[in-house]
C-alpha cells in the first residue's frame, strides 16, 4: 500500500508540476505573388450532417485567397441523397463517377486540393476540413507553370454555352496531360442536414451539375512546350426542363489541367468563368 501511495504521489506531482512548454506561435505562411489558381473538389451531400462545416471552410478559403482558388461541390452517392425536406436532388452521373474515382476517403466532407497527395492522409483526399486551407496554401507556394484563358458565349434562346479555352504552358512540361471541364451552379436554396437538425434554407454553392468532359478528363496533349498555346472548344446546352435549377445567371464553367500518369494526377492550373459574363 505504501508503494501505491508513493507512486500515486509521484504521478500526481508529475501531473501538477509538469514542465511548462514554450508557447507555439500561430502564424500564416508566406504565399508568393503569382497567378497560380488552385482547385478544390469537395465531396459533399445534402444528407451529410457534417457537410455544412465543409461548405463554411470552402467559403473561408475563397475569402482568404480571393481569385486564387476555385471550388466544386461534388454531390455523388454517399449521403448525397435528398433530405426529407429537400426540393432538389443534386446527384448526377458525372458526380457519382467523380466521387467513386476519388478512392480512399473515409467519410464526408472530404476534399481534394489540386489532386495532390496530402501529407497527413497520404491520399489525394483529406477528410478533415480544418486541413484544407493548409493544403491550398501548400499548392499556392508551388511555381506557377501554366495559364488557362477562358471565354464563353451564351445563347439565351437555345441555352447553348460555347466555351473557348487557351492553355499556355509557362515552361516545358514533359508527360501526359488531361483537361477537365465542370459546370457548377451557386445560390441554390434548399435543405441541408446539419448535425442533428436540417437547415431548410441552406444556400448551396459550386454544385457540380455536369461535366463537358469525361469525369476523369479528356486528353489534352503530351509534352507541353513553353508558350505553345493549345486551344480547345466545347459546347453544352443547359437543360430547361428542371424547375429551379440550371439558372445560367448563377452558373460557372471551371476548367483545370492535370497530369495523367499512374502515380501523379495533380492539377497544374485551374480557371473559372461565368456562363453569362
Amino acid at each position, binding site marked *: 500500500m505504501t508503494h501505491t501511495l508513493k507512486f500515486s504521489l509521484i504521478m500526481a506531482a*508529475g501531473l501538477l508540476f509538469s514542465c511548462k512548454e514554450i508557447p507555439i506561435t500561430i502564424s500564416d505562411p508566406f504565399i508568393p505573388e503569382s497567378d497560380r489558381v488552385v482547385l478544390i473538389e469537395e465531396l459533399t451531400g445534402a444528407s451529410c*450532417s457534417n457537410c455544412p462545416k465543409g461548405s*463554411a471552410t470552402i467559403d473561408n478559403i475563397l475569402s482568404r485567397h480571393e481569385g486564387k482558388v476555385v471550388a466544386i461541390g461534388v454531390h455523388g452517392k454517399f449521403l448525397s441523397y435528398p433530405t426529407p425536406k429537400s426540393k432538389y436532388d443534386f446527384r448526377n452521373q458525372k458526380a457519382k463517377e467523380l466521387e467513386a474515382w476519388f478512392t480512399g476517403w473515409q467519410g464526408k466532407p472530404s476534399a481534394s486540393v489540386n489532386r495532390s497527395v496530402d501529407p497527413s492522409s497520404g491520399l489525394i483526399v483529406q477528410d478533415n476540413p480544418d486541413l484544407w486551407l493548409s493544403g491550398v496554401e501548400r499548392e499556392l507556394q508551388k511555381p506557377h507553370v501554366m495559364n488557362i484563358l477562358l471565354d464563353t458565349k451564351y445563347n439565351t434562346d437555345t441555352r447553348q454555352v460555347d466555351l473557348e479555352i487557351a492553355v499556355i504552358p509557362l515552361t516545358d512540361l514533359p508527360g501526359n496531360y488531361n483537361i477537365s471541364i465542370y459546370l457548377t451552379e451557386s445560390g441554390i436554396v434548399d435543405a441541408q442536414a446539419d448535425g442533428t437538425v436540417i437547415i431548410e434554407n441552406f444556400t448551396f454553392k459550386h454544385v457540380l451539375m455536369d461535366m463537358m468532359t469525361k469525369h476523369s478528363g479528356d486528353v489534352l496533349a503530351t509534352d507541353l512546350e513553353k508558350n505553345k498555346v493549345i486551344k480547345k472548344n466545347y459546347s453544352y446546352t443547359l437543360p430547361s426542363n428542371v424547375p429551379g435549377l440550371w439558372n445560367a445567371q448563377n452558373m460557372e464553367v471551371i476548367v483545370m489541367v492535370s497530369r495523367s500518369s499512374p502515380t501523379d494526377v495533380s492539377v497544374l492550373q485551374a480557371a473559372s468563368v461565368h456562363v453569362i459574363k
Partner: protein
Amino acid sequence: MKIKFTIIALLAVFSVTKGQGTFSGAFETNVNVFLRDSAINAFNTPQYDRQFYGGESWLSINYSYKDLTIGGRFDMFNNSNLRVPTDSYSGIGIGRWYAKKSINKLEISAGYLYDQIGSGFIFKAFETRPLFIDNALYGAMLKYNFSDTWQIMGFAGKQKNAFSNYTGNLKGARLEGFFSFGNEESPVTLAPGAGFVGRTISDENMAGVVDALRTYQDVDRFIPNHNTYSGTIYNTLAYKGLRLYTEAALKSSDIFYNPFAVKTELVGTTVGKLEQKSGSVLYGSLSYTKSKLGLTLEAKRTSNFNFRIDPNQRLLRGLVNYLTPLNRQNTYRLTARYNPAAQDISELAFAADVRYKFSKSLSANVNFSDIKTIEGDRLFQELFTELIYKYKRKWQLTSGIQFVTYNQEIYEMKSEVPLVKTVVPYVDFLYRFDSKNTLRTEFQYMDTKQDFGSWLFGLAEYSIAPKWSFEASGMYNTHPKKANSKGEIEKTLYPTLGVVFYHEAQRYTLRYVKQVEGVVCSGGICRLEPAFSGIRFNMATTF
C-alpha cells in the same frame, strides 16, 4: 528492417535446434469473393467493380526457451476492405515482432507490445482484426517484481499504424499489487494499482494542429500543448462473494476533436472543432454472487476523454486508450443491431445485471443499461431478459425479449431522425438427436417504426459433431422504411448459407452472405459500412 530480419533469422535458427524450447503459433485467413448486387447497394467499390476478391492473412509464431521468448507475425492484406470499408487496401509485411527476456525479478521486452493499464482508460495497446485496429506499442517495456504480489512496469515508444508507426511518442508506468488480510478462510483482498501515461505530439502532427487553428476565429483559437499527462488509480476489493472494482482516471489539458462543439465561422457557426481541455473517467463495478444469485451493478462517467497519439486522427485511428462500454454485448443478429459506441466526450452510464438459477434446468437473466450524456440527453437504454430451460441433455430453450431506445442522431450523426425504439422477442431452441447430431434454431423479430423498419430473422444450424456444422439463415425487412438504390421501398431478403468444418484445432468456414448496409459515424466523420454480397471463407488454427 534489419531488426525484423534478425528476428526471423533467430526464429529460423531456433527452429532447427532440436529438443530445446517450445514453439507455438496461430494462423488466420479471410477470403472474400465480391458478387455485385445493386439491389442491396453492394456495388461501387473497387472489389465489386473490378477486383472481385479481397482477403487478409495473419501468421503468428512464438518461440520460448527458458526465460527468453521471441515471436513475429506475418500480416497480409490483399485488396482488403477492412481498413476502409469503401476502398481496397493492400499491404504485406512483418506486422509484429517482439523479444522478451526474464532476468530474476526483471522482465525486459522490446518490439511491438500489447498491454494495458487498469481498464484501459489511459492506455491500452491491443489488436482487433475485424476493425483493422492494431494499436501495439512499438518500443521497450520493463517489468520488475518486487515480490510475488507487487510489480512495477514502465514503457516508452510509438504507436503502430498498419506497417508503419505514428510519429508521436508515448511513455508510461504502472504499479500493481495485492493485499490479503482478515480471516484466512474468507479473507478481504485488495488489488490496488496506479498508472501514468505521457504523450508528446510530434512536430509534424503539431503542424497539422496549427494548420487547423489558423482557420479558426479568435474566439475558438488556443495555444496548443505538445504534452498531455494522464493518470489513473484503481482497486479491486473482494470479500466472499462480493467484488468491488473502482477506477478514477484524469487527463491534463489535451487537444482533441469535439464533433459536438460549436465553431464560429466567418458567417454563422458550424458544429465540430478542435478543443484543448482536461478530461476524466470515473468507473465502478460491484458484483455479488451467492449460491443461485449473481448480481452486477456498474456506473461510468466520461468527460472529454478522447485520447489520441495525433489529434488530427479521427474514427478508430490513433487511439491511445479504450473506453469500456457498459451495455450488454449481445450476440443474436437483431438484438445486436443497435449497439452504442462508448462516448468519449460526454457520457453517464449505468448498468445492472441479475442472474438467478431457479433449478438445474431453469435459469433467468435480466439486464438493464441506461446511457445519457452528462447534460441529460438520452443516448441509449436497453432492457434485456433471458430465460433458459434445459430438458435433461435432450433439448434447451432460450427465450426472452429486448427493449431498446437508441439515439441515431448522436451515434450515427443523422439529422432530425427520431429515437429508434425497438422491441425484439427471440427464441433459440437446441435439440440433440444423439451425442453427435444437434439442431439449433433461432427466431427473432424486431418491431420498429424507425430507421429500416421491422425485421424478421431466422436461422437453422445442424451440427454433426465433431467435424461438421451446416447453417442457413435469412434476415427479412418485413415493414421496410428505406428506399433501395432504385429508389423503391421493397421487402428484401438477406440470406446466408454456410458450412463449418473442424479438424483438430483447425476451423474452416465457408459462407454465402448477403448483408444489409449501415452508416457509422464518429468524431464528426461518417463511415459507410457497405452492404456485402458474396462468398466468405475463413480458416483459423493454432499450433
